[in-house]
């Protein structure tokens, strides 16, 4: 079972959290000017990275707030979690591991 650090509540059990997919995807500011291709790309297409990925999570069965995380999708290791709006942490280099 994973232990996830909520930036507001501290370390809690994985079952309290929900993942909401890739983070830092900005909603287009001009939706009525977008083509079907651009709109579909924004809504459905994802990088689905094998390795380090920035994600949105929410602490549903806790404070209920949303936050971002940097996680390795191969090992499931959380590198860091951070509040929405904070600068994203750098992807660690895997040398020496």
């Amino acid at each position, binding site marked *: 079972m994973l232990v996830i650090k909520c930036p507001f509540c501290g370390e809690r059990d994985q079952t309290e959290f929900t993942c909401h997919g890739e983070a830092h995807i900005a909603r287009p500011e001009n939706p009525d000017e977008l083509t079907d291709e651009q709109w579909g790309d924004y809504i459905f297409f994802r*990088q689905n990275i094998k390795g380090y990925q920035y994600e949105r999570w929410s602490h549903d069965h806790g404070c209920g707030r949303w936050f971002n995380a940097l996680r390795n999708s191969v090992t499931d290791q959380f590198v860091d979690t951070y509040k929405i709006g904070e600068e994203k942490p750098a992807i660690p280099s895997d040398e020496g591991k």
Partner: protein
Amino acid sequence: MNKYSVFSLVRNAMSYHENWQKAWRSPDPKKEYDVVIVGGGAHGLATAYYLAKECGITNVAILEKGWLGGGNTGRNTTIVRSNYLWDESSAIYEHAMKLWENLSQDLNYNVMFSQRGLLHLAHNVHDMQEIGRRGHAIHLNGIDSEFLTPEQVKEIEPTINLDCRYPVLGALLQRRGGSARHDAVAWGYARAADDMGVDIIQNCEVTGFDIQDGVVKGVETSRGHIGAKKVGVVTAGHSSVMANMAGFRMPLESFPLQAMVSEPLKPVINTVIMSGAVHVYLSQSDKGELVVGAGSDNFVSYSQRGSFDMMDHIVGPLKELFPFTSRLRMMRQWGGIVDVTVDRSPIITKTPVENMFFNCGWGTGGFKATPGSGNVFAHSIANGELHPIAAPFTMNRFNTGALIDEGAAAAVAH
């Protein structure tokens, strides 16, 4: 290829079964192929088989990173059914079902296809409405399904606990549904494809694509460059990784889906049983093990493990529906990486790269579609245009909005 039969069995018994021909060759890769299939799972092997058999293209290679059928082909719960809601889904899954029904004869390999019947349980008013709607839709598409009362369910499965926390109110039965032996499917397709000249190359990882002016010319692999006039990518959970290599994105997310088997029992479960509401599905293998599965993890992962809490979600409903399992020991547990689309329907598509085709997005339910998926994908690659059954499943639907929304319709077990 030596044909398998009772006579070959007797003949080989004379030499203590030491002279059986190898089921397939292990050739070195040629410089170039007409078609290169990336991924040696059952869908990829089926694609190569139908390319050779029905499209006359035998200069084909299958490149597999590990070993044949070592990914999701060897990690699923081997359920076969075609009771889907929408016409597009009915067409492709029923196409597969019809191929399943003759597959052992077609391949001269016993895939142990067993049409033992498949029960989809309903536990609440919504479930009853859902199986009603879907059952009638299935009838309209000429596919078999029957509505059962709880008493009829009990007759088929005497060990079920109808009066559990969420009582069983009815069920939808597809008598032609059932199960097949997953390894045999991979091996049968491999042997038959190899016999027609297809090169099966294992331990050969694709590390990149050779793309010139938007046209694919070959693949870079751990065993060097291999030229290809056309490339078909059938890599399930790793489809996004392949697409990222080729320079585009897919509408997919990859999640671990886990399953487990119990210690062997005498025959006790007669059908395949699925329940969306309490969320478990199970069947009994010919070895006697109960094969049990449930939901996937809800975060992207390539770990091939699955979360501990999901195990709890599997055994809880199992024990509730079948109280006799309460002291049953689980022998093995594993996870496979499934590539899930938002509409829970697969993607069979051309891509932004010319002559490159993708067959992916089968999510949590690809095994049942294996023959149909390989068949229509082979025709799509050979003709350069999507087969009519495959056409609605193009990736383009995520831009046009013509989604095939089986997420709610098929409920849980795909």
